[in-house]
């Protein structure tokens, strides 16, 4: 039930999500026993240049499947499974990025077993590139990934997270394996021997983000307290040319222990610095910097903002929730970031909710969030893991993918205020891709600001986070009632572009050299 609205408060603009899993042709399950209790991710990226993201869903012990996006713009979602070279088993998660800067999206696939890095060949074909790029073939339980371009490098620095020792299933506690940091070698064409991010505390999500807007991303890691001994959440300072090191209590870092499973990062309150949402088992955290950019010192504002999402809101199960993927995005195009959280019991843990619906928390102007999952039609009770909000049919409304453990993956089309037959926009929007002529062709690490007539919304372009799920493609901005917006970008390295105007409801490419250009579907 919605909270009572004040008489002068406009009603919440709740988007309607219509499940199109079967009609879209999405047929995949994430199965597997113990080593697949975590993970279950989805990657979305456009590899054929039509502006619509393709979908790659991990299947655990099942084969991971690549789906070409055949949707008609604004219409029902249509996916077609194709052979792409990404065929794998034991895949748990996937993140797209352009590692070699050739303009063709590559893909990092997390696995129970060695990670597999695929080089994009164009037209949605891929080839294994572990040997080409000197990716280590550690036979570990890989659970997290993030990437950043350190200053001066044409190839990204890769962080690879892992869980506990696969050889110790009888007593896994205290056996978390170290995470790895891969940096380009002197040739700039492949990776040097990995550096250890030790101690590892069973990472389930990691994200390079410029938390203090210093121009240099640090690595946030969400760790699962279930299996570490003496561990905590981590923030690694990754300085070019230096070994990575953990931020310390002396620098302001506060020890936090949760069942860290997913990371979402966004400048929710508009102060120019990102807040962080960490998913866990009941004690999800919404962290805000308490001393600004000066210290990595966070306070929890989850309760204050109505964003605890600690137990099911529908279905009658009163047990605590288990949260995995989290993502901030504007699903109703009102100009305020909303929060999407995928929920699901680890397996059949009796002390946690079995009927644990995914959350859709709408952000409001006062900074508060309101749960609308049931009204929006996306309150699935399957055992959720990874997920993604992404515009699959190019209509400006973010659609929804969820990977479920021991069940089928699900897909919902966002029809806004309308119906499947007559979708109806809820607000204006624009979508943007960045491009620069360097190895970091997609400008990962850039900050985009959109001025909605005095109020600025901003988004950092990152690779990583969520839970085992990543997207590379259009950056989506809800504009509310604004028919036009000004935007600018702080490129990796720190320089700002000029403000440029852009009409609403269109796609744009902002080239660092040539400026803003409208993009039209081929």
């Amino acid at each position, binding site marked *: 039930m919605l909270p009572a609205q004040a008489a002068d408060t406009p009603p919440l603009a709740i988007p309607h999500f219509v499940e199109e899993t079967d009609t879209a042709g999405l047929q995949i399950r994430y*199965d*597997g026993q113990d080593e697949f209790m975590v993970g279950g991710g989805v990657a979305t990226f456009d590899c054929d240049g039509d502006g619509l993201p393709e979908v790659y869903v991990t299947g655990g*012990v099942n084969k991971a499947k690549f789906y070409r996006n055949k949707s008609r713009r604004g219409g029902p979602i249509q996916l077609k499974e194709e052979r792409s070279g990404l065929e794998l*088993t*034991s895949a748990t998660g996937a993140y797209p990025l352009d590692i070699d800067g050739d303009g063709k999206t590559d893909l990092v696939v997390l696995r129970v*077993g060695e990670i597999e890095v695929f080089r994009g060949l164009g037209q949605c074909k891929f080839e*294994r590139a572990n040997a080409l790029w000197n990716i280590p073939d550690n036979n570990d339980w890989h659970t997290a990934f993030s990437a950043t371009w350190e200053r001066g490098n044409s190839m990204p620095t890769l962080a690879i997270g892992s869980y506990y020792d696969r*050889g110790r299933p009888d007593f896994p506690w205290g056996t978390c394996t170290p995470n790895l940091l891969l940096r380009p070698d002197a040739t700039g064409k492949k990776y040097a021997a990995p550096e250890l991010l030790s101690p590892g505390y069973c990472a389930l999500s990691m994200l390079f983000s410029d938390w203090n807007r210093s121009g240099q991303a640090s690595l946030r890691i969400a760790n699962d307290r279930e299996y570490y001994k003496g561990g905590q959440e981590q923030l690694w300072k990754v300085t070019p040319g230096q070994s990575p090191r953990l931020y310390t209590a002396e620098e302001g870092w506060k020890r936090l222990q949760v069942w860290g499973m997913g990371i979402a990062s966004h400048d929710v309150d508009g102060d120019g610095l990102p807040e962080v949402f960490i998913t866990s088992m009941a004690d999800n955290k919404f962290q805000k910097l308490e001393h600004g950019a000066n210290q990595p010192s966070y306070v929890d504002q989850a309760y204050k903002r109505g964003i605890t999402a600690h137990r099911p809101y529908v279905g009658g199960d009163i047990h605590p929730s288990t949260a995995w993927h989290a993502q901030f995005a504007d699903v109703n195009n009102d100009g305020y970031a909303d929060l999407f959280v995928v929920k699901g019991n680890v397996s059949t843990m009796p002390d946690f909710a079995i009927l644990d619906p995914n959350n859709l928390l709408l952000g409001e102007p006062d900074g508060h969030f309101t749960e609308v999952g049931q009204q929006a039609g996306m309150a699935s009770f399957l055992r959720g893991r990874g997920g993604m909000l992404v515009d699959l049919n190019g209509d400006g409304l973010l659609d929804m993918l969820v990977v479920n453990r021991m069940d089928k993956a699900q897909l919902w089309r966002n029809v806004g205020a309308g119906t499947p037959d007559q979708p109806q926009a809820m607000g204006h929007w624009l979508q943007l891709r960045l491009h620069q002529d360097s190895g970091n062709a997609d400008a990962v690490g850039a900050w985009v600001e959109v001025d909605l007539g005095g109020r600025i919304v901003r988004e950092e372009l990152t690779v990583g986070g969520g839970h085992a799920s990543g997207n590379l493609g259009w950056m989506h901005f809800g504009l509310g009632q604004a028919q036009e917006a000004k935007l600018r970008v702080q490129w990796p390295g720190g320089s700002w572009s000029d403000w440029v105007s852009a009409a609403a409801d269109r796609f744009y490419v902002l080239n660092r050299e040539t400026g803003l250009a409208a993009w039209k579907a081929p």
Partner: protein
Amino acid sequence: MSYLIPSIAPALAQRRHSAKAWALKASAVALAAIAAVAYCPHGYAQSAAPAATLVAAKPEGALVAAKPASAFSSNVVYDWIYLDLQIIQQTPGFSPPVAARALGYLGLALYEAVVPGMPGYQSLAGQLNDLSSLPWAQPDEPLHWPTVANAALATMSRMMFPTASAENKGKIDLLERNLPIKYSQDFNPSTITADISNRSETFGKLMAMAIMTWARTDGGHEGWGPLRKDRPAWVPPSGTGKWSATPPTFAPALLPYWGQNRPFVIKKASDCQATVPPVYSEEPGSAFYKEGLEVYQISNAATQEQRQFALYWADDPGKTPTPAGHWAYIANDILKLRKANLATAAETFARLNMAMSDAFVAAWHTKYTLNIIRPVTYVQLGIDSNWVPTLLPTPPFPDYPSGHSVQSSAAYTVLEQLFGADTPFVDNTHNDRGWGPRTFKNFKAAADEAALSRMYGGIHYRFSIEGGKPQGQCTAKAVMALQFKR
């Protein structure tokens, strides 16, 4: 009352590994009688030899009489093998390798228990890995070989199947008690004194215990257990073309360390190799791709006959006595049909069962060394995303080589040498399921059908089937090279 003479005394006196000279007390009369019974020691086409009474002076001066093992029928063995196969079928954890191992020790215990009653034959102690000696039958203390066999097999069955149901444990007790009554011709009370009976039981139990003591050290002891605490959890190697858990259950790998078990005969598992498999490739047109495509196409288009073959030889644990049990069933029937004697049965099951057990160890060693991807996974990755074999579930371990192929090849190679290459036979193993009896023209024909059935079922490549055959033949040849005869 007369005593049975230990007709095997001369034989025992020459046991190769005896450090002690046996005090041979058999008289010339006895030796003459042995010569008379030289009768064909225990040829494979013969029935139980007629009783020959040997008379000799006991140390105490009493007259005793004894018959060799070949003078008794194999009925005791038949009933025990039949029951043990039932127990294998009904006891959780007796997967094909575990079942083969159990049968191996049962066969060996039987042989070692009665070999003192097999003139011209010798113990295998000293020829088998890490087995240097076994208990001796006292040459001057006559034994009754059916009683020895009954006690040895009963004791071995109890120890080999400790997790059997209470009902099956009761069947073991019942069979041990009832066999002497059921087969009164072999257990003629008028010829077995109480002390012979007791001594025979004691010797049979002693031999079983000695064999079991050795068995516990082979690495496969209590292989049905949930987790081997003395070994790290097995982590499947990862990489292109490597095995991963398969649908529909995606069960963890079965017995990943079984290939490290101590074999009975071959010195180490790697002594018997499968042929080299094709290089892994997902490229259409590659040798590997063709193999994967063939499994996909053949299993999808399997004829009714091919489907029946697949089901017939599946020999799944829990439903059947497993593949090794299937061949033991065949051998048991042949022995019964031919009215084979006890000695013949003992040698048969020792050779057959050890060869099959070693075949599984060798096959498992290769499986978990190469870790080759199963057809279901390969086909899903490169040919048909949604394909699963409809006839048989893919077993939870790497593909190469086919265990059925290796083990069946071992079995037929042994049986061919024991009974002849052109021996037709009737297989009654699955009569209870309505699938038999089936007649085969020879052992090889059955083994080839069993091996190929796995491709019809969609769970093995042809190269796994063909490549496994030499490995099984190798273990069989090693067993057949054992010096059973002095």
